[in-house]
């Protein structure tokens, strides 16, 4: 991918760095495994010593150690030096109670309204591919402000997801709220091509910025629906040497960033 040539880092590393920048010190972030966990930990090490990381497995205030990345968010290494450990039902209820600022997940398929599909490619009755399913994804996306980090490919950015596993803005406009989802909603989608948000009223996905060496046309070309474009389209700061150094220190085996 052109990105790889343009930057001295893998697409996954780019995702991790760019999404880490979206997390502010002092926030409470509910992170999924993979890029989200890595990016949240990166933010914690770079600019957010007071960033509180929650995991679905039941961890509050995680402080993941370099080279000790967990295979999921349910193993003991997620809890080392954490502030609290509790049941998975109870940690998910913190989302419902309103204690969490940001939910942070990866995505397999997303549509123009930010709905995520991690259940079925094709029809649920006779799927071409049965995917792993929601996990806590539906709960996180239903209850808090979301950041999604994923590869930007036409087959992943579709007009309408085959199955709404984790709700974005559903059919746009007020449909999310009308469905009873009064809290949260999609906030940002970070990809290896750029940074996207959602229009305040129509709730359509909008390109907010592109990464160095990427054009708006290229982003559109890799998207399966018509993107709204921000009036101004800044270019993101490429990952700094320090960001990459810390990131590679956290994941020396490229467990998440291969």
């Amino acid at each position, binding site marked *: 991918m052109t990105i790889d040539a343009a930057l001295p880092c893998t697409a996954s590393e780019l995702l991790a760095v760019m999404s880490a920048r979206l997390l502010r010190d002092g926030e409470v972030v509910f992170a999924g*495994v*993979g890029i989200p966990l890595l990016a949240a930990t990166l933010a914690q090490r770079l600019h957010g010593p007071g960033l509180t990381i929650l995991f*679905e*497995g*039941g*961890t509050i205030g995680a402080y993941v150690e370099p080279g000790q990345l967990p*295979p*999921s968010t*349910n*193993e*003991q*290494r*997620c*809890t*080392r030096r954490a502030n609290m*450990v*509790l*049941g*998975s*039902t109870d940690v*998910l*209820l913190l*989302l*419902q109670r309103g204690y969490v600022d940001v939910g942070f997940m990866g995505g397999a398929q997303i549509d123009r309204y930010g709905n995520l599909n991690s*259940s079925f490619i094709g029809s*649920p009755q*006779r*799927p*071409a*591919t*049965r*995917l*792993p*399913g*929601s*996990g*806590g*994804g*539906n*709960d996180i996306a*239903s*209850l808090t402000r979301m950041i999604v980090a994923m590869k930007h490919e036409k087959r992943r950015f579709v007009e309408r997801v085959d*199955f*709404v*596993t*984790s*709700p974005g803005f*559903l059919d746009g406009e007020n*449909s*999310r709220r009308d*469905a*009873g*989802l*009064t*809290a949260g909603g999609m906030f940002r989608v970070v990809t290896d091509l750029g940074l996207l948000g959602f229009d305040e009223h129509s709730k359509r996905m909008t390109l907010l910025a592109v990464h160095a060496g990427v054009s708006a046309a290229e982003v559109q070309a890799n998207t399966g629906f018509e993107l709204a474009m921000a009036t101004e389209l800044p270019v993101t700061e490429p990952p700094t040497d320090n960001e990459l150094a810390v990131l590679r220190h956290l994941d020396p085996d490229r*467990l*998440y960033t291969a």
Partner: protein
Amino acid sequence: MSFSHDELCRRTGARDRSLREKVMSLDEAAALVPDGASVGIGGSTLSRTPLAMIWALIRARRRGLVCARGISSSEGELLFASGTSQHLITSWFSLGIVWGVSRIMRAYTESNRARFEEWSHLAIGLRFRAGAMGVPFLPMRSMLGSDVLARLPDARVIDCPFTGERLALVPALNPDIALIHVQRCDAYGNAQIDGLPFMDLDLALAANRVILTTERIVSNDQIRRRPDQTKIPFFAVDAVVEAPFGCAPHECYGIYEPFFDHLDDYAAALKPDPEQGMRDYLDRHFYEPQSWTDYLDRIGLPALLDAARRGKSIYDD
């Protein structure tokens, strides 16, 4: 798996809840699980999975189990591929970021040979909690508007009688049997759990029968010294089985981490031909071993020592 209060109380009242020793072998405990039973599985993903009990059930050629777990991993593959279960109620079922999407899950569900009934993670947890509380349902605010909810005839949507807000109601899940692995318990079944409890406390109280496997059986005196460390009360427990390394190759918090090399080999063996690879794995690790110790021996002493060293490291400062 959801009952009227009359039926729930009748079933619970019929259980022997007296303070009595209930230590038995894996095989004796497996005999408590009839074909077709609904079975709640403790732990999550690779953590505190009651593998020794699942191993015994697969060896006993149990059939038609309807299983439920918050998040499922290789134990779900083993249950499907061994023919022990064709129906898993869970929120997520795969191997995960390190080993990729479960090929066994895909093969069985895409061909409709088995059913993966998907609820959100919170929904599974609240279903066990409702079961533990003795209420028919609990309200929640997620799943609304999603296709996950649309495919679940057992869930309902209401307008809140207090606030008028839309709410999802999920029904209680009271499994016939719960399989839970703990770090230690006494002969009566008073169990202590270190680290992540997942949904096991609710699951234990929700189930109509609980089979505990434990790394170690301790004295009731030790339990009574710190009653605030007991997480599961003895009267909810029907069987206690001592099974050291009872989660291998998964982890048991503070005692051993996942057996990563074994899981790498397992995933690699399943890659070329998942079903043949699984048949071979089941033969070598489930059907052939003479005993649980023999099972562990086939995983290998070096792997055990390595997993134990990493497991205990959680308590290093």
